[in-house]
């Protein structure tokens, strides 16, 4: 290889930057031309082979453009499908939201509200004792009310009787008084 020291230094720098993936297109071309030189020193043979191998793995020419075009066509199709069925998508969203709210309400209620289950420690006999007590209290309260009404009626009856007696007495006295005058 008739390269001078400057070329070798350049080659080293380019190889280092190649592995860092910081080469420009021109620098890559320059690197490949230097590596293709038949008088390449042996110390760079491994790098040359590696770079050539990596070049073989590169996508074919125009692959990037074709890929971009395919992505664009898929995106356009998706957009068209979405705009064609907006109602269905909205309905799905509504149902999803409603289901989420319902689940949250149900789960939240089960935590917030205390358990309404019958305490397990209460036997039917104990439950009956409580119900009987409740009914007795209820009936006693009702009876107290009815008793009070009866007492009030009795008092009213007596008062009415007294009033009638007083009126009849008054009436008798008036009649006597009139007779005396005549």
């Amino acid at each position, binding site marked *: 290889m008739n390269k001078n020291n400057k070329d070798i230094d350049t080659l080293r720098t380019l190889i280092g930057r190649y592995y860092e993936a910081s080469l420009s297109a021109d620098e890559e071309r320059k690197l490949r031309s230097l590596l293709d030189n038949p008088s390449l020193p042996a110390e760079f043979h491994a790098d040359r082979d590696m770079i050539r191998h990596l070049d073989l793995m590169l996508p074919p020419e125009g692959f990037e453009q074709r890929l971009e075009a395919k992505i664009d066509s898929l995106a356009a199709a998706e957009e068209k499908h979405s705009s064609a069925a907006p109602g269905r998508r909205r309905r799905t969203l*509504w149902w999803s939201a409603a289901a989420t709210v319902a689940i949250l309400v149900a789960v939240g209620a089960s935590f917030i509200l*205390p358990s*309404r*289950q019958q305490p397990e420690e209460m036997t*039917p006999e104990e*439950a*009956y004792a409580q119900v009987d007590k409740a009914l007795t209290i209820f*009936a006693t*309260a*009702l009876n107290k009310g009815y008793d009070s009404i009866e007492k009030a009626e009795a008092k009213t009856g007596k008062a009415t009787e007294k009033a009638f007696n007083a009126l009849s007495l008054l009436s008798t006295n008036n009649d006597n008084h009139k007779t005396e005058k005549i």
Partner: protein
Amino acid sequence: MKKKLMFFVVAVITAVAAANAQSPFFKKCEDAKGVTTVLVTKAMLKMVGSTPGMNMDGYSQALIKDKLDCVEVITSTSAEGRAFLRKEADAMFNAKKGYELLMKVKVNGEGDDVKIMKSPLKGGKNHFVVIAGEPSEMVIVSMEGTLTLEDVLKCTKR
């Protein structure tokens, strides 16, 4: 769409409410100091009505099994508990909340006072509340179902 959503929400709320048959008043009293609460659910009432050897007449059995949905008994003998119950009962069971006063008895000098309230529920059912205050004890009884005042008197006449 809105109808479907409303139906869905109502169904969920109904399901939650059905699973939680306890009254708001009972819920308040459960954690109150010096207050004892007893809840007998419809499931237990059915069990009581179906358990043989309970020493109850046929009328009581039918009432408990078929006409009662829920029975709550709330008592307190402490001054603090009685004051709490009286305050909460007055706030909860009044005309503004849909409760009609059926009877009120106050015996001056003895310190007894009794109130019976009623609130109509759906399906021909009623919620009866008895608030019985004595000098040393306060008892509040809450009963829900299709029972009537006549039923109560009949099944306690033994």
